[in-house]
């Protein structure tokens, strides 16, 4: 794959799968770029954790003036996607009419070009499409056994 060195050093390898960074000390999930420091507990130990890809839109905007690599795709929706695992990711939501996007809409991740190859380099990342499947059931909270005196 032809990837530009500058992009690779700024953004790292192409994001072929959706993943988050998990703090080994407190378990908090962070967006994939938080490789170095956990702001929940100040730990420096973070590891990759793959995500299932499902989530819901908690906020969104519509971009009319895109950055260079998104030129030609405007207007497009960018959402804050709260993944089912808890972590929030910003990402484009594609193949959807602007009127059909709402806070609460369920989405799932898919593979799309990010850098489009205008300069001969292609870079892939995760974008989201509307998911008609129902949300996964949340596991019921376990009842704590009361200590018997």
């Amino acid at each position, binding site marked *: 794959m032809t990837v530009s060195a500058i*992009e690779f050093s*700024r*953004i*790292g390898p192409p*994001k072929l799968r959706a993943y988050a960074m998990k703090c080994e000390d407190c378990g908090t999930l962070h*967006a*994939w*770029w938080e490789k170095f420091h956990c*702001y929940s507990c100040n730990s420096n130990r973070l590891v990759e954790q793959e995500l299932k890809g499902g989530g819901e839109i908690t*906020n*969104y*905007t*519509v*971009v*009319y*003036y*895109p*950055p*260079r*690599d*998104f*030129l030609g*795709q405007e*207007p*497009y929706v*960018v959402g*804050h996607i709260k993944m089912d695992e808890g972590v*929030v*990711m*910003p*990402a*484009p939501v594609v193949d959807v009419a*602007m009127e059909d996007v709402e*806070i609460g809409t369920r989405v799932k991740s898919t593979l799309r070009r*990010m850098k489009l190859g205008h300069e001969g380099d292609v870079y892939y*990342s995760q974008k989201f499409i509307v998911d008609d499947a129902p949300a996964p059931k949340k596991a019921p909270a376990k009842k704590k056994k009361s200590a018997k005196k």
Partner: protein
Amino acid sequence: MEMRVGVLGLGKTPHKIQHEKGLRDLIVEAGRGAMDDAGVSPEDVQALYIGNAASTGFNHENSVGLMSSHHLGLVPAASVRVEAACGTGAWALHLGCAAIMSGLYDTVMVMGAEKMNDLATVEGTSIIAQAADAKEEYFSGLTFPSGVALSARKYMEVYGLTEEDLAHVSVKNHHYGARNPYAHLRFECTVEDVMNSAPIADPLKLYEVCPMTDAASALVLCREDILRDQPDKPQVFVTATQMATGTWYAVSDTMKDAYDLLNKPATRAYEMAGLTPDDIDVAEIYNSFAIQEPFGIESLGFAEQGEGWKGAKDGSTWIDGKVAVNMSGGLLCKGHPLGATGATQAVDIVEQLRGTAPEEIQRADARNGISACRGGPGAVGALHIYQRLEG
């Protein structure tokens, strides 16, 4: 700690697209203006702190600090370029204040300068995006306007603010911007004009985002006694300077983060100056996007959270209101030349306290002023308090 850093002189260039002037032309214009106003010559300036956020990208120039001191005739004095995204100019001011307070220098110049218009908008937008982490912006297709638009929608969702309500912020800023000869955009507008302006990033529209502007501004600062010894000069001092960092990524920028970014340093600044929000007459609050003015008003204690937008509608943040906010027209009208903004806010407040602002934007008998600057997606908070203190 009592802080009294004297403001000896002010200089600024008009804010507009200036293809015929280079970055160095703007820097020299503002810097000489400040030194003339201060009545000092270049030899008197012991250090230069010049804020410039992105000349490597915008102008293909890098060593702004060294370039500026050369052209201003400041060699062999100390000189350095300061960078902190959109908070750059305020950081130059902070460093200049700290230099005076340390006793190492007695007279310094602080500046901010940016020339953004030699590139096309899309290129410029991408360079501005470099002030956030490319990982988030490039990955998500966000730009600064759309990142802030997300916080606008969140505010609307949480507090019930409507787009028409928010439009009043632009109406107020444009009212005063039209009366500020140094502003980039000098036209008034109505709520309807704002609502009908082109969408930039939903829900923000053209009149709710700042233009890309070329400008420079400068202040000559001095030790307290130097200003006191010139009683004919307006006795305006910087009496608090407090800086902070916040979240580097917009996606983790919650409403609380947005509030804390300015509220925490503001609280420390009020304490440092011995003032409360009620004592403030004029404020320059960073508003490159309209929604940031309500956020700032709340963080500075001028309104409860969720109510910061009301002042533009009910008059309490207009010139005769409880506190006059952004009499310069704010960044919405002045534009946001990245490195200059924080310094220009200081210049504009000091003009208010001196009583030398243009009549139609001059708050009557302003004694206490505050400037709030921010940078990055929510990464830099910068608070300064200024007071006219007769000897």
